């Protein structure tokens, strides 16, 4: 042990420590991302580019959702094609109680309190994730992808058929969730709430992936047989991760509903789930900050390409195929290797 201690340096017990690669990319890389996000919207507001404030808010909210998906996709190897359903459920949780305040009915949940909206969003998504996850996680590979997509579409069609809440025309709620002391109607306040939420989500996922729980998830992704031989039931750990992931996306949905003030089933269409997955893989599923990179690139490309051509999804698809085929670890992986060479 002494030799290894001498070899690795200053830590308290270096022989047992870990170089800590994998989920953490270069800290400079992460700091730049966080600084850009912290400064982005205020600067845009200051120079009067309100359009960019919107872009940044959207970026941060989607980053929360993508980070939530990454917990099961990157860490646990569960490729969910139905996570937009959680975002949609979270958004409706912000809209429906307010709808009943404005138009009457359903007294039990009629409130404009943000805390209640938030609780409904998180609890409903966690329960939905538990019920569907319990079934989905009995399958593997392509079957898992298909069945998560099927459950997502189930929610989509359920809301399409709900005429009370606008059916497929959606629901416009001009009153945002109300919190004491702050008003989400102010763009910068809403942005600050979203940004702090993102920080909290990143920290949560960081702790989860490095905990004993996260170790089991990663091990089960790599070699489920061996995990079983160690006497560990991977299913229960996966289901727990799936529930946490769903709840995080529900939270992101709550923010998204408050941001757009327009909620429609289109938010949970399977193509939305696909986009979310696309962002995570493009940015780098094996990295904590990967999803944020993916969301940023996605939004920038969407803005620029949709101005140039109608079929802007086409170059997107090609980009995704190229990423999966040639860039291991997505854009973050690319940066990681580049930084490694220049250290």
């Amino acid at each position: 042990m002494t030799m290894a201690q001498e070899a690795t340096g200053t830590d308290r017990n270096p022989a047992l420590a870990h170089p800590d690669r994998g989920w953490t990319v270069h800290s400079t890389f992460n700091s730049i991302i966080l600084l850009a996000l912290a400064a982005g919207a205020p600067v845009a507001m200051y120079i009067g580019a309100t359009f960019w404030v919107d872009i940044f808010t959207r970026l941060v909210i989607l980053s929360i959702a993508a980070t939530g998906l990454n917990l099961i996709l990157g860490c646990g190897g569960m490729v969910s094609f139905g996570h937009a359903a959680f975002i949609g459920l979270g958004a409706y949780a912000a809209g429906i109680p307010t709808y009943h305040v404005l138009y009457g009915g359903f007294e039990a949940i009629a409130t404009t309190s943000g805390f209640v909206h938030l609780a409904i969003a998180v609890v409903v998504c966690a329960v939905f994730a538990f019920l569907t996850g319990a079934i989905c996680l009995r399958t593997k590979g392509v079957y898992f992808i298909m069945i998560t997509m099927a459950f997502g579409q189930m929610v989509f069609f359920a809301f399409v058929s709900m005429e009370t809440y606008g059916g497929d025309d959606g629901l416009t709620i001009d009153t945002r969730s109300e919190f004491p002391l702050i008003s989400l109607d102010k763009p910068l306040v809403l942005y600050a709430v979203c940004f702090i939420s993102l920080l909290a989500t990143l920290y949560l996922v960081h702790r989860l992936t490095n905990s004993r729980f996260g170790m089991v998830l990663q091990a089960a992704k790599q070699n489920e047989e061996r995990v079983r031989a160690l006497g560990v039931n991977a299913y229960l750990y996966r289901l727990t991760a799936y529930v946490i992931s769903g709840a995080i996306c529900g939270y992101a949905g709550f923010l998204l509903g408050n941001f757009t003030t327009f909620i429609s089933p289109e938010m949970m269409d399977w193509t939305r789930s696909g986009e979310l997955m696309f962002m995570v893989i493009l940015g780098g599923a094996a990295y904590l900050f990967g999803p944020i990179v993916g969301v940023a690139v996605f939004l920038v490309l969407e803005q620029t390409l949709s101005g140039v051509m109608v079929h802007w999804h086409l170059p997107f698809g090609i980009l995704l195929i190229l990423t999966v085929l040639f860039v291991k670890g997505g854009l973050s992986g690319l940066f990681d290797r580049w930084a490694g060479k220049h250290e």
Partner: protein
Amino acid sequence: MSETANKTADAPIMRIEGLRKSFGGVTATDDVSVEIHTGETHAIIGPNGAGKTTLISQLSGLLPPDAGRVTFRGRDITRLPAHQRAHVGLARSFQITSVFMEMTVLDNVALAVQARSGHSFHFWSKARTLSHLREPAYAKLEQVSLAGRAHTRASALSHGERRQLEVAMALGTEPHMLLLDEPMAGMGTEESARMIEMLRGMQGTTMLLVEHDMDAVFALADRISVLVYGRLIATGTPDEIRGNEEVIKAYLGEGDAES
């Protein structure tokens, strides 16, 4: 070998009684009864097709026997599913190497230690900073002489090193008994010699090993059981087995006598 005499006097840790398994018309395990003593290294040898792998698969729970009984530490485990055998203290290494390729060597063993120390629904503290996982894991690596590679990814190990890691992981679960399924399989002479040295260093741990390599078996085993066509024809110390006429006739006579 006086130590061996003491060990054989101990109570058996595993008792196999009348174990039987057939596939179609072929009887792969034919009424096998043997006792494994606490602390001994027990080797099962036999010519190809003797049913060694079938036997060890039944002991590790991968194959259900047709008849017979396996008792481990006083408990009937004949029908216990494979994943629960880890909990009663029976660990196995795999003939085909099975480790977590994207994790470091130390992470692999720490995970085995973690699996042994209760459930893993601990969401907050960082697994890689927990000394009650890392220290025993590191000790296991020293035991298999792999500590120098602790922070190497498993995917970067040589075949022989992966087999060592495999054994370290099995040890990580603090087993009462270790099933080693051909630990030298696919190894070169040098790697085999290292593995033998390593296993010799682990004497005192109860081990049941299935192995082709005769040098290894006679160098390691306290007792040897000889399996021919699914039947156990002899059990005894290496010297007894060497001198057993039935064994020489049925098995060693086929050209392996020199080894």
